[in-house]
């Protein structure tokens, strides 16, 4: 019997010949990531556990992204505690304000993740890096502390759902629309404990950034991880940029998949996830005309250069509706810099959008872009839960950067194809 990508990676990491779904294995972790929300309690737990030194200073990534620059004394104090720990321990991969960006984006941009790795991150969207063919799982602060001290963690080997996607997305339909459609089909609890595997011609056509959007939202179907089958594009990227050469771990032809889905990307329509559930997915046409107060392009889901290019193209030469605040937050300093050199930022500014510094920005509702009572936001982020972006009586509609930009211009939820 062949093995899936997850089974192969967990076999290797646990020193076994093969593993089966449902088995619990103890595995060596290749890299650990924590952010400004999870690092302080993880570092505290690490010390309470009686550890003195982190297991490997080269294998720990610390990125500040949720509330940066600090917005109050509380966050400033926690950020400072993180910096102190990083210095004391000699942690190599530290991305402070102005040096990095969203932690998941950093993993890809700094060459910290590659096919076949086990990445553990104290953030639920750690699965984003599955776009590079790694096994990436989110954990909480205690598990992160355990890895910090030992480099090891237990895992239940997941069953796998495989998604074969044919065809090509028809611009301005984006990979966000595809993953929203998939979540709508699978359901918010449809993939509990499962690994998702994405493959097929539609994925081969996507950039790594577009793939990251899909892997990122696997968690919204409650999946354990989401992995895009790695290909030449991934190996070329790693080789050219970081001189990293590793084998591409793919599923065997006779691997067992609990379920297989086949989709045609060319039939995907612009989608919206309607509050307060990410699986409450509709075609944009069904909610078209809903007035919005805020539009947000950014987050680990859609704050990459591809996303900014698409949004800039739509607002180019137009003005954001007078009632709307259009917030754009590049996912990282690198994306920011690239957008600047491509002239995208001036297009946003001319359209009356505001550019925020690289961070999670409005997505988690922690420091900026917070919604007041009764306000509505159309957002390229990943969650539309009750009170996610602010007041409990505010609403977030999730959509692609194209739909967000089109809606920003019109002041109401709008199909981006009207600008195409």
């Amino acid at each position, binding site marked *: 019997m062949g093995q899936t990508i997850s089974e192969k990676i967990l076999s290797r990491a646990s020193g076994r010949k093969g593993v089966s779904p449902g088995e*619990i294995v*103890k595995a060596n972790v290749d890299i650990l990531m924590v952010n400004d*929300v*999870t690092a*302080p*309690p993880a570092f*505290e*737990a690490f010390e*309470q*556990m*009686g550890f003195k030194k982190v297991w490997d200073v080269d294998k720990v990534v610390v990125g500040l992204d*949720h*509330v940066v620059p600090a917005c*109050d004394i*509380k*966050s400033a104090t*926690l950020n400072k505690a993180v910096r102190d720990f990083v210095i004391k321990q000699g942690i190599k991969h530290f991305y402070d304000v102005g040096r990095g960006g969203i932690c998941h984006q950093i993993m890809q941009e700094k060459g910290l993740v590659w096919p076949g790795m086990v990445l553990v991150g*104290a*953030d*639920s969207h*750690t699965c984003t890096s599955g776009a590079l063919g790694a096994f990436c799982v*989110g*954990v*909480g*602060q*205690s*598990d992160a*502390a*355990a890895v910090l*001290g*030992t480099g*090891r963690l*237990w895992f*239940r080997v997941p069953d796998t759902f495989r998604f074969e996607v044919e065809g090509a997305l028809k611009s301005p339909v984006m990979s966000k629309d595809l993953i929203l459609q998939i979540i709508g089909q699978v359901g*918010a*609890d449809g993939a*509990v*404990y499962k690994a998702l595997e994405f493959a097929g011609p539609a994925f081969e056509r996507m950039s790594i950034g577009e793939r990251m959007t899909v892997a990122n939202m696997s*968690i919204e179907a*409650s999946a*354990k991880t989401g992995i895009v089958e790695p290909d030449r594009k991934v190996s070329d990227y790693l080789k050219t940029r970081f001189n990293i050469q590793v084998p591409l771990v793919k599923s065997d032809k006779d691997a067992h998949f609990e379920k297989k889905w086949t989709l045609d990307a060319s039939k995907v329509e612009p989608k919206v996830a309607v509050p307060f*559930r990410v699986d409450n997915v509709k075609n944009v046409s069904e909610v078209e005309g809903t007035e919005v107060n805020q539009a947000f392009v950014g987050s680990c889901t859609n704050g990459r250069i591809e996303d900014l290019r698409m949004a800039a193209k739509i607002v180019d030469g137009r003005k954001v509706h007078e009632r709307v605040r259009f917030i754009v937050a590049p996912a990282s300093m690198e994306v920011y810099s690239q957008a600047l050199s491509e002239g995208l930022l001036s297009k946003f500014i001319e359209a009356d959008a505001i550019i925020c510094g690289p961070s999670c920005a409005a997505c*988690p*509702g*922690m420091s900026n872009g917070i919604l007041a009572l009764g306000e509505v936001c159309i957002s390229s982020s990943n*969650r539309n*839960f*009750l*009170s*996610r972006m602010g007041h*409990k009586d505010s609403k977030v509609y999730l959509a692609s950067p194209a739909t967000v930009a089109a809606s920003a211009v019109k002041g109401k939820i709008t199909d981006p194809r009207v600008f195409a």
Partner: protein
Amino acid sequence: MTKIVSKALKMGNDVDTDMIIPARYLMIMDESELASHVFEDMKPEFRKKFETNKIIVAGRNFGCGSSREHAPIALRKAGIKAIIAESYARIFYRNAINQGMIVLEAENVSNLVGDGDDIEVDLNTYEVVDLKKGIALPVREVPKFMTRILEAGGLVNYLRDHKDEW
């Protein structure tokens, strides 16, 4: 023999961690302060109810969404002793065990148990009984190493004393 006996507090499917503790409180490190905000936006009345109903009975995918361990911490500190659900989001499940919170999976539990029913959880066997209805709930077995973490009161205590077993 240690047993937990308390009233059930029923919840639905897909209770997410933003509901349990909104993100604006994630910079709080003090556990009691976190607990004071539990379910604040969705069901503020739960906080008071947790003082008498210390066992949550829920449907599918309890604890979905964000990886914030603040969620089981806030529940524990607000008085919750155990959760019985049909399924859990995996990060919440791990976090709860790591916080010493008893989390059990039982099929159809949200139909079998009524809100306010007296529930008994036997910590030696992880058996669950609805005392009002007089029925034992078939719960999924908890792996031995997880019960060891629970017995220690969470992962911090467990690893402090048992690094050799990790």
